């Protein structure tokens, strides 16, 4: 309950107080061409993005969130960045990074950056949904990684990289990636994935340190 990291820039404050492009009508009425959805209320934030596409450009973007001021501010900014000047092309939009959004916002407190990554993920999800609906599945970027911790968006690939760097136990993995520190529902699955990678890379017990 402390006040650390509440020094938001004026741009963030403006977007937080007067968020742009919120979905005001029902989803049925809006008739989006693509819908993206990430996070869960259990993790403390959740984001839904709706896009309309015309001739390969995002001509309109609306969104909804269960999220904190950073999530609201950054998604509001994202919605402007994507739709300004006639709209970004799908190829451009899918490349937007949290860094680019944070830059436009004039920065975010360090402990708030994780709250702001949902917007661009939801946008990518919406674009992929559009590709699926229009039969352009070949355009969906192939992601090898699978998210195992929804709250903190840790993937199995992240865990593999940690194991390759020498992490062998759940506590260390948790300290480094924060995996499973929010709702904790993924802990058992993460332990299994971790053990599988440890087994795969450190078969000899000498390396695992286990008896």
């Amino acid at each position, binding site marked *: *309950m402390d006040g650390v990291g509440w020094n938001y820039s004026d741009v963030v*404050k403006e977007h937080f*107080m007067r968020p742009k492009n919120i979905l005001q009508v029902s989803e049925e009425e809006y008739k989006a061409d693509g819908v993206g959805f990430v996070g869960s209320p259990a*993790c*403390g934030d*959740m*984001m839904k993005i709706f896009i309309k596409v015309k001739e390969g450009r995002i001509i309109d973007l609306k969104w909804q969130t269960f999220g904190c001021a950073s999530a609201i501010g950054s998604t509001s900014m994202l919605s402007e960045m994507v739709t300004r000047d006639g709209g970004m092309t799908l190829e451009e939009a899918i490349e937007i990074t949290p860094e680019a959004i944070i830059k436009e916002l004039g920065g975010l407190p360090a402990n*708030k950056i994780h709250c702001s990554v949902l917007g661009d993920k939801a946008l990518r999800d919406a674009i992929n949904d559009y590709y699926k609906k229009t039969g352009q599945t070949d355009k969906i970027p192939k992601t090898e990684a699978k998210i195992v911790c929804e709250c903190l968006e840790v993937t199995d690939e992240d865990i593999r990289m940690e194991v390759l760097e020498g992490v062998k136990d759940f506590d260390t993995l948790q300290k480094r990636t924060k995996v499973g*520190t929010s709702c904790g529902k993924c802990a058992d699955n993460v332990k299994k994935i971790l053990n599988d990678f440890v087994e795969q890379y450190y078969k000899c017990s000498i390396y695992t340190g286990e008896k």
Partner: protein
Amino acid sequence: MIYLDYNATTPLHPKVKEKIIDFLNDYGNPSSAHETGRKVKFMVEDARESVASFLNCRPDEIIFTASGSEANNTVIKSVGRCANSLCYSSAGKSHIISTVVEHPSVLNTLKCVENQNIDVTYVKVDAFGRVSASDVEKAIRPGVTSLISTMYANNEIGVIQPIEEISAIAQKYDIPFHTDAVQAIGKVPIDLKKLNVDYMSISGHKIYAPKGIGVLYKKKGTKALCPLINGGHQEFSFRAGTENTIGIVAIGEAFKQLKIEMDEEIIRIKKLRDKLEAGLFKTIPNIKLNGHPTERLPGTLNISFKNIEGESILLRLDLFGIAVSTGSACSSGSLEPSYVVSSLGVEPEIAHSSIRFSLGRENTEEEIDQTIEKVGEVVSFLRTMSPIK
């Protein structure tokens, strides 16, 4: 500014402020034998008597510390530390019973001593946040349990624990009993002649005194505590270091004022809190009270506004000039929502959506009216943006 965060801290009582200003030229060291020192010594002892008079205990049972946290640390870290300390267990291993809803200054201190051959049992709470005295009794290991430490009232949800029952159990098994009463002082009548506690922690800045001053009550006749700070003979040798004389004089005055105002204030503040609670429940759908409906501090109201996130609510209210606090993860700098609200067995999203309103002596009825209106606006705005309907 409508300040509704009195459980976090309080403004100085005007009389306390006056007292501090008047005192600022009295620089004497209370340990000095000369006039300059004696004058301050007299004022320190006057303050001690004022605290003792409020609590209905002896002045030599009052130890001034720098904070409630220090008082908690002093008691818990005494367990098993040296053979002549009061919580020493001859069994070699010591055991402490506490609860899952304690303040971090208790929980993290327990975590710290857990590494030192001390077992800790954290008793769970029910859906209202209350500890059951029989659960505490079940956790007792005769001959090994060296301390029972349960908070009087919870800072986040305001739940008042069955302290009399727990203290009776402690007495029955002859186990020292400590209570962190930081949130209860001034909000619940406490009479130490009637209530059997061995140690009690108090904080100045929750009762309209400044930050940096606390009290540790230690009942006469219990065995000695191990000081956290060794040095001179100050505070009956339980707490070395030249006294924080300004803080002590201030907290003495704060207790004098509490004695005068408390009974009426409890009634007035409870009325305001009930008005706020009723107003919010009447005007805003889909909200949930966290904590006990009646066994609760008069000024505390913790509510979850479903489907929206606590920090957003807090910051929008802040921009409207209303100060509250939240149990959402986003406000804490960590990713975990309030462990207190989570301990009630609710879904994590309930904790992420929780807002604590805590009222105090400067709040007025008009402020409560404005708050009900503004909270309604903020909640309905944020709900229009929420993907969960």
